[in-house]
Structure formats: C-alpha cells, structure tokens
C-alpha cells in the first residue's frame, strides 16, 4: 500500500496515516524490541556475560529469569540474543533450541522438538528407540561428541519454565541440568517464568543440579519514566518518509503527554499496572482512533481508550439483564444482607421476591415459578451466581445452594445505570422493606 518515494518527501495525508498505523501497530502488537533495553542494563549485562562464557569458553550454565508477566523477560532475552549474535564466534557456532511450556506439554513432544530444532532428524533417522531414555541418551550423545572446546554450544530456552516442572519425573529438566552441571557439552539453559516459587516446584535431584542463578526483573519504573515510555512508543522514527508530517506528529505526541487530563489517565494506569502489555493495549485503543479525517491524537482519545480499558465487565453484563433477572439479583442481595453471606436457593430468592410483590398493589411482575426458574438458570449460565458444590445430581434445581458473585456496590451501580429502571424496584434495592 505505502509507496516510499525517496525524492518527494511530501505524501498525502492518507498515506501518511497508513504509514503511521503500520509502524505503530507493528510496534505495539508484535512487541518489537527496542535497540537498547531500558532500566535493566545490569541484568542485560549479566545475562550477556553468562551466555558469552558458554559460547566462547564452552562453559555450561543454567539460569532462570523470574519476573511478572509483561515485565520484559522475553524482551531482555531477545535483546541479549541479538547482541550475542553480533559476536562472530557465536554467529558461527551457536545452536538455539526454543521450547515453550505451553506447546511442549510432555517430554516426548519436547524431545521431538529438540531433535527437529537441532536438525538431528537425519541422524536419528529411522532408528527405533525402545524408550524415552534411550532416545534422550542418543541425542545427548550427539551433543556430547567432541570435548568442551570442539563441540558446538547449544542454548536451550525454556519459556513458561514452570510448566516443564509438571512433566512426569521432570526428566527433561533433570537431564538438561545434569548435562549442564557435569560439563559434558557446552550448553546453557535459560528458563523464563513468572512464578517466584519456581524452585519449590523442582524435585530435589533436579534442584541440586541447577546452578541457582536467578535474574529478577523488578520494575523500579517511576511515573516520569512511564510517561516517557508512552511518548517513545508513540513517536515516529527519524526515517519517516514524510519528514514534515513525522515532526508534526512527534510534536503533537509531546504536547499530548504534557496534557493534564492525559497525565491523570496515565497515572491511574500506572498505579494499576506498570507492565508493557497493558500500556500497549491502551495505546492500541488510542491509535485505532486515528484516521484520515482526524490525523492527530487528542487527549479525548486517551480518555475514551482508558474508559474502555477500565470498563467494569460485570456492570456491563448486569446492564443487559431483564427486569425479572434484576429483581432476583436484588432479592439475593437482601438475603445476603440478612443471613450474612450464607448460600441461598431459588425457593428462598423467590420467597423474598414474593414478599416484595405482596407489598405492591399492582403486581405487574406476577410470574409463574417456571419463568422465574428460567431467569435463575440464565443468571447461573452467566456465572453471576454459582453453585456451592458441583454435585447437582441428587438435588432438585430449586433447592441447589448458590452464592452470588457480585458485591453490594456493583449491584447498586448497575441499578443506577439501568435503562428505565422502575422506581419501586430501585427503592426495594435500597432497602428490603421499601
């Protein structure tokens, strides 16, 4: 779509916007990696040193990178790998094996994947292995050929490391760590996980073979840095085809980030979560509002996007309930108030609802029990109420004990927003005796 014209740097607005969208979308969605890792230089250096020792000196190492989700574990690793591959020696000899705990759900699959990624399929060929252990032994043998200096270093990257610990007997981890520890072949094992207690998951024999080297990425991000990061994420690079547009865009982003209302929104986000991903989601929503007819980001866009991000899902769902279902929820709320969060069943709820109806002279809500039952089941289907125990077999539906999954304030807020909510229902919600 975009045609870069080298000489004529003035593009029509449409193409500029297309270009902006492409660049920024790629940045926000595919998590492109920055040229330089910010805030984590120390960890970057540490990891790079470690892997260099494996690649250049043939030392075996194992390390875990532990950090919450979206804190930049993969980003760190990718940056390190990129820098590592700039070394001539590394580029020439390093073999990489990428495993993911989500994909390789057991050791057999993992082993196949390792074989494939090391291009050892032809070595394995048609060999039929009697057992998993034999297969592994063969692969390790292939890795072990030659001594420390002559064999090629292999880098094992285990994403979602904690899931590998659930494999039977932790065979894969045991063997990898064993090779690393006994210096049979130069391998480096890098695990990425978000679980702080990951070492507790390892069996004793596995744990003792692990080097106990952990790299923590604890975010010390301040609010200023956060805003700065938002700005860099939204800014266009120097080599943007239309220089003038690029500069104007960048200027508008700078003013945007200084806007008081935007700052307030960002602070709210910063206080909820500092990670990259939630920031990207917010910026993505902002970006989607940029179009040809409106080629700049306005503070209002950020506000709108933040409103979308902070929308209360349960409140939204309550908005779509019918009056009958809403009445049942109010009845449940009263039951919860009276009996201090004891579970309830349909009969009790219906009884409470009937009490309300009896006080009304004109009962426009006179429904048959089955109709109420259907409404109740709909609430259960939406998981707004949940059965206390799952054994439904022997209890009649109307006596199945349930709990309400909403709290007081959510219900009251939903009632405020409810379109054309009858006044008597509103009053009833406020007090059980209205």
């Amino acid at each position, binding site marked *: 779509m975009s045609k870069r014209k080298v000489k004529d740097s003035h593009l029509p607005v449409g193409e500029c916007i297309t270009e902006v969208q492409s660049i920024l*979308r790629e940045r926000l969605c595919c998590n492109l990696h920055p040229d330089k890792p910010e805030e984590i230089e120390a960890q970057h250096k540490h990891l790079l040193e470690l892997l260099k020792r494996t690649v250049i000196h043939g030392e075996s190492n194992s390390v875990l990178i532990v950090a919450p989700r979206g804190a930049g574990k993969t980003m760190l690793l990718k940056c390190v790998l990129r820098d590592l591959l700039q070394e001539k020696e590394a580029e020439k000899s390093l073999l990489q094996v990428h495993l993911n705990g989500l994909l390789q759900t057991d050791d057999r*699959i993992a082993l196949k*994947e390792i074989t494939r990624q090391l291009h050892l399929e032809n070595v394995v060929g048609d060999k039929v292995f009697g057992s998993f252990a034999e297969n592994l032994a063969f692969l390790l043998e292939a890795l072990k050929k030659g001594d420390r200096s002559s064999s090629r270093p292999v880098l094992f990257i285990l994403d979602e490391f904690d899931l590998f610990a659930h494999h039977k007997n932790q065979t894969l981890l045991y063997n990898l760590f064993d090779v690393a520890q006994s210096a049979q072949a130069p391998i480096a094992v890098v695990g990425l996980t978000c679980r702080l207690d990951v070492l507790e998951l390892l069996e004793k024999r596995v744990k003792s073979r692990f080097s106990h080297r952990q790299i923590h990425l604890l975010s010390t991000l301040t609010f200023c840095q956060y805003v700065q990061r938002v700005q860099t994420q939204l800014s266009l690079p120097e080599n943007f085809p239309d220089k003038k547009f690029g500069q104007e865009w960048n200027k508008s982003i700078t003013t945007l980030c200084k806007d008081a209302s935007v700052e307030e929104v960002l602070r709210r986000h910063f206080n909820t979560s500092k990670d990259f*991903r939630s920031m990207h989601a917010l910026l*993505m929503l902002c970006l989607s509002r940029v179009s040809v007819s409106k080629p700049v980001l306005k503070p209002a866009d950020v506000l709108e996007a933040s409103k979308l991000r902070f929308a209360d899902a349960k409140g*939204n769902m309550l908005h779509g309930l*019918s009056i*009958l279902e809403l009445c049942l929820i109010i009845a449940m709320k009263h039951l919860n108030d009276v009996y201090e969060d004891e579970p309830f*069943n349909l009969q009790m709820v219906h009884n409470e609802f009937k009490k309300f109806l009896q006080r009304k002279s004109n009962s426009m809500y006179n429904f048959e029990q089955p109709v109420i039952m259907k409404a109740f089941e709909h609430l259960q289907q939406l998981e707004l109420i949940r059965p206390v125990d799952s054994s439904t077999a022997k209890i009649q539906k109307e006596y199945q004990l349930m709990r309400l999954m909403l709290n007081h304030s959510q219900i009251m807020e939903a009632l405020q927003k409810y379109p054309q909510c009858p006044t008597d229902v509103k009053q009833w919600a406020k007090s059980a005796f209205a």
Partner: protein
Amino acid sequence: MTSLLEQPGYDEEKLQMVAEQLLCREDQAGLLLSLMGQPQQYCYPSIFIYGHQASGKSHVMHVMLKELELPHAIISCVECVSSSLLFELVLFSFFGSEASSLLPRSPSLSDFVRIYRQQCLQAPATQTRYIVMEKAELLRDADANLLPALLRLQELDNVSVILLSEISWDKFRPNTGCFEPLLLHFPDYSKGDLHQILSQDSHPKYSDDFYSSYINILLGVFYTVCRDLRELRHLVRHTHTHTVKETDTHKLWRNIEPHLKKAMQTVYLREVSSVQWEQMQQMEEKEAGALRGLSAHTHVELPYYSKFLLVAAYLASYNPARTDRRFFLKHHGKIKKTNFLKKNEKTSNHLLGPKPFPLDRLLAIFYSVVDSRVAPTASIFSQISSLVTLQLLTQVSHDDQLDAPKYKCAVSLDFICAISRTVNFEIVKYLYDFL
C-alpha cells in the same frame, strides 16, 4: 450510517454492504474495524468480545469477515470437541486441505504450531488472518494450555484471535496469568433497537405500521422477562398466527393479550415443541374453551398406591419427624397444639428443600394415609423403586445399603397437590409448614 464504517484499505461498496447488514451494531462494528486496521497491518494479538446472548457478536464477525473477504477461520467451540478438530479447521481454512492433512493423528499443540510455521514460510500472511472462537467459555474446559497459547499465536505470524463469549474475561484468566486480550463489550439491544430489528422481518401480509404495533405489544408483554433477541423472534413467529384476523390495533391488543400470556407459560419455557403449539392453537380454535396452559405436570399418570406413596414421601420429606405423632395418631395424648404451632425452625422446610427419610417412616406414613388396609407386599416395594426410576423420589443412601435405604422426595408442591387431589387427599392439612 456509512460514516461509522470508514477505513482505508477496504472497498467502499463492501463497507456499505456491511453497514447495511449490521443493524443497530454500527458503533461496535466501527470500533472493531478501526482496531483491525487495514488488511495488511497488524491487529492486536487477541480481542475478547463479551456480551449477552444474541447481542450480535457472531453476526458482526461473520458479516465483516465474509463481506470484506478477509482470511479467517470461524470456529465454534461447541463443535470442536477435541483440539485436533480445532487445529484441522484452522489449517484448512488458511492453507487448504493439504496443510490440514499434514497433522498427525491426535496432534498436540506443538504439532499444530510446527505445521503452521512451515505453512507460513511458504505462504506468509499478506493480510491479517483472523481466528474467531465462538462460545469461548468452553475453552476453559479444554486443555489448560490451549487458551494461553491461542492468545499468543501472533508470535508466529500476522494472526489475530477473536474470542466471543457471554462471560466476562475475569472468569477465564488462568492461575499464572496469560497474555491479556483487548476487552470489548457488546451491549444489549435497547427496546428501540429490538423493535427496529424485529420489525424488519415483517410479513408481507400485513402493513408495516400494523406489524410494528404488533411488535410493540409483544415487547410490552415480554420485555420485562426476556431481552434475548432470539427468544423474542421465536415468540413472534409463534404468536403471529393470531394477528391474522385483526387489523385494528386496539382490537388486536384485546385479542392477543391472553395468547401472549399463555405463550409466556409454554412457548417461552419451551415446554412444547413448535408443532405441538400450533396443533394446540388449532384445537382451541375449534373448542373455543377456556385457556389452559399446556404443561407437562398435569399429565402424569401413576398407579393408585404409587400416588399415596408419593404423598407419603412428600410428607416425610417436608415434615419434621417429631410431628408425625400429631398428624397421624388419632389419640396422641396430651400434646398441646401450641407446642407444635410454635415453630422452632425459623425458615420453613419449603425454603430449605426436602430432607431425607428412612424407608420405615415412609411406610408408616403410607399406611396411615391410605384409606384401606394394604399388605406390605413386594408390589408396594417395587412401586417405590419405580418412583425412584421416574425420578420422583431420589435415593440418598448408597445402592449397596439394603436394610435401611433413605429417600428424598423430588417433586414440587404444585405437583403433589395435583396428585393428592386425584385421590381426594388434602395434603395441605398435613403439612407442618402450612399449619
């Protein structure tokens, strides 16, 4: 209308077509389209769309992806009973049958990703590919790694996963977290929207005004109970036979109201099939008798003693055992009535549900309520077990406990009243809750 669906990179005519088909969902479609961006641009890796049943989630996705001719795979999680079906469908719709035949038998996620990668090398995505998962709440019951992996699928190629569900995202999040999708809410249709949509499929026999006033009446009756467009459509389809005769709106209301009320009891609850309902309507037109709801409860035929057994079981389930003397002994000595009337239990048993009772108690009550002498023969016992088979009674204790089995009565008060009326037994007099 079209101003909302504006996005460079798409054919204007097609956008127009989309806008025409998405009645009352223009805002949502517009937002979605702007998130999707131009075909060749990246979209956010995963989007989670939630909203009530029949709020147009699937419809919007179907129309947009089909009309705009974007590469997509639409998968209903109800159909995909195993993950291999899912993998096959995705590969088939993106790369054709050759790719899906590459999958080994009972493929793992790893196989799928491997083949997907291979295919992507041969045919890299020029446009964003979309995988739409309908009824995504069922993914929670699939393998634990499936959902988190799907959310990260964009690491392979330019592909976006769109999840549609009725349940909010909070209930999906796995223990250790995962890649968070963008959350979008499809709000329910307002009354006006519903009216507009329902009026669309007007019958050629009626004028538009008339049909719309008919819809208005129908919504007036059902809107408090049901806002589900699909249910309402069903109701419209089954009640509109009555509108044939009338053309005046006021007359129409008088004529149709009882029918709508009845439809609430039967059609809305789906107690009868559509065919049965139509037959019933025709019958009634002939008889012109009183309006009766057609309900399954009134049509249970039981043997004489079984009825008494059921009554006895009901009494045993809902009365405390200590009150049996008062109800069933003629000379129960000097037990003051007030002792009984003072209710120790705060809430009645009809709120808490049936209590289990031993077989002995059931039989004792049975002998005292049945008016003739009955011998405890095998036929009585076999009737008990057939009541259990009919699920009118449930056996609480284990099957292997032979000497003192315990039961619970599993029928409602209305049902038991109907039963006892057929044997001239006034059950309400014998119920502790109604003293």
